[in-house]
């Protein structure tokens, strides 16, 4: 019988038909569902690309260099996440805390860039009500930002929990792995958004 830790209590956990933990299967299924969620948002953006009746238009307002920096920060955070999982998997709780804090910090930095960007756009006269670009841009990147926010809270909670005995240990590194799967997924979604909305978007619309 495997032992599983749930909320600080050790409970017996029967082996599963696949050998995978329930929570891991759940996370993969959830991410599959999330693909359709972001797929629909991205599809909406693409359908409406170039169909705004009034400005500001993407190429007037999107700032590729600045967003490249925040993209770089977010993608690097995935590396930190990998290092955090590697640390906890070998029982290095201190290393785990350092790398996970770094991950959360980089996620927060990305969010800071996004807040700055949104604020800047509003001052330039682009709000969700202005035109179709504003409507679809803020909805798509806003939902992505919300996902990053949930991720940052999750990561910080894990760091906090690691100070309580038995909550985050080598044996239940799965908790960290699940957060990692989510984090990497959110990063991958950003790669798609950055490419379609920013890199390709400014050339066409």
């Amino acid at each position, binding site marked *: *019988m495997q032992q599983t830790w*749930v*909320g*600080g*209590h050790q*409970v*017996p956990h*029967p*082996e*599963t*038909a*696949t050998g*995978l933990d*329930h929570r891991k*299967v*759940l996370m993969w*299924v*959830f991410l*599959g*569902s*999330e693909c*359709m*969620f972001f*797929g*629909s*948002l991205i599809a*909406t953006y693409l*359908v*409406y690309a170039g*169909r*705004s*009746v009034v400005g500001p238009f993407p190429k007037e307002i999107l700032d590729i260099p600045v967003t490249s920096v925040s993209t770089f920060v977010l993608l690097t955070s995935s590396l930190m996440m990998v290092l955090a999982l590697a640390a906890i998997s070998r029982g290095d709780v201190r290393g785990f805390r350092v790398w996970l804090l770094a991950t959360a910090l980089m996620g927060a930095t990305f969010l800071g860039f996004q807040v700055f960007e949104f604020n800047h756009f509003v001052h330039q006269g682009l709000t*969700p*009500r202005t*035109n*179709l670009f*504003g*409507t*679809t841009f803020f*909805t798509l990147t806003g939902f992505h930002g919300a996902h990053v926010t949930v991720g940052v809270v999750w990561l910080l909670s894990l760091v906090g929990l690691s100070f309580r005995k038995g909550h985050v240990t080598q044996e239940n590194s799965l908790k960290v792995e699940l957060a990692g799967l989510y984090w990497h997924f959110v990063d991958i979604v950003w790669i798609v958004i950055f490419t379609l909305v920013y890199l390709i978007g400014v050339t066409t619309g």
Partner: protein
Amino acid sequence: MATIVQALRRPTSYTGWWSWVTTVDHKRIGILYGATAIIFLLLGGLEALIMRIQLARPDQTVVSPEVFNQLFTMHGTTMIFLAIMPLNAALFNFLVPLMIGAGDVAFPRLNAFSYWAFLGGGIILNLSWLLGGAPNAGWFGYANLTGTAFNPGHGIDWWVLGLQVLGIASLASAFNFIVTIINMRAPGMTLMRMPVFAWMTLVTSFIMIFAFPVITVALVELMFDRFLGTNFFVPSAGGDPLLWQHLFWIFGHPEVYILVLPPMGIISEVLPTFSRKPLFGYPVVVFSGIAIGFMGFGVWSHHMFTVGLGPVANSVFAITTMAIAIPTGVKIFNWIATMWGGSLNTKTALLFAVGFIFTFMMGGISGVMHSMASSDYQQQDTYFVVAHIHYVLFGGSLLALFAGAYYWFPKITGRLLHEGLGRLHFWLTIVALNVTFFPMHFLGLDGMPRRIYTYDPSMGWDLWNMVATIGAFMLAVSVLVFVFNLVTSLRRGERAGNDPWDGRTLEWTVPSPPPAHNFDTIPVVRSRDAFWEEKHRRAIAPVAGGSGRMDPGEEGGYRPGHDPRHSTIHMPSPSYLPVVVALGIVLAAYGLVYHLALAAVGGAIAVAGLYGWYMEPASEPEDTGQ
């Protein structure tokens, strides 16, 4: 926040009404789903009756056009999201863990949450009648009928928010059943030994997790248009109402299979048992179900043939739609072949199953007629479509659910439904169904549009409308017979015993009703139709599907194998946190309409509940549940 959550003591009671609120037992949750869904079914039926009274004769003024719009919107929304889907969910919950030899679902508290969120969504939708008017834009809520410019009241807000909450409930439930079926099968229960109902639950759950996010996004966009003033469906800003149709039907057509695949699973369980034969072509039936699940995502634009997508799009979607009839037809032939040469035990469940094949096939055939784009141009938005959808959803889904009710009621309650009343119910239903819905084909071909609140006597639609209304009242009587049967049999029905029908699957190996922990020892499965094989293998020749791997010494009664890993029964403990989270979400939904402060409070309750949920162990160490 943490201290508040931890200060509340965990519920420990397993009896009394409070225990139903805090239960995480999949069987009790299944019963809650079923009972709630029957109430919504009656509500939806009442709405249908009012519409039929209004349409019985030309130029009637029983209800106003405004109320009529609300009635057809709420009738469709209720029947689909609050009656058939949760009736399916009731059977998923009660049966799937028993069928695959599991003690519970993978995430019992998430399962309880799904039910409470479903109830909350149902309440949001139905309270709209009292809070300024029900939604009135049809169950597919086409843009821009739903925009604030044309629909300034709160009706559409309740529709959007209710469906969002129901979507959360459905997604949570689908995640849970996918993990349960993939991960919690008993030793030896390989995928290709699973009962077809469990298979169809798996396929349906996958359809849900891929289809629901799309409607979630569509509803979010509509919600932003209404609450924040965005331009998604505002033509003056360049927004395209067609986007709504695409997003809605990319969800909406798979939704049809969410409604009908579980009933197909029920039929695949009922027919073999009452024909005393294994299911004919089990792998083909399973793969047809999977094929329908995949193909269901590639046919959505057949709802939009008259939109003007062009001949290429129309042709492609016509062909994919015709193609989906193939796996459906395969299933029908397999069901007929299952009965062929069987020793038929003509109980009510079998009658309903045969009725299902007959009427569902008629709905399927009118469906193929719609798939021809040129022919659909004539049928679009007429009563012909209304006839079609009722043949597949009433004649299909509901008849199968009735078959399932007669089949599994003894397992759920320990008592049989009354057979005489059951037959009366069946014959009334099958006659009334055809009296109600068959004339709608004529009306549709005669050009009667759907969703009109009245018509002129010169149109010549009087006769068939009157016939349909008479049929609708017969249907109401038949449903009342069923409800009467449920209520009386619950108290006075004949005792069922473990296995009243000579069943094939694992749920019949345990007492009726099953104990909280389901199985004393987790069974070891050695073949498809495991229970039946072990009961009858001496009496019959080897059959397809049985692997024949059995201990040579075993004879007679079923002796489940013993798996030493599962020797301790450790039950998940009751919890009120699922109710707390669902309540928070519902409050937040009301807050979005009335006051953002309420939304914030609701959100805080939901987050606090989730936090407590995360910290609370799934089962208390000292509490074994028994």
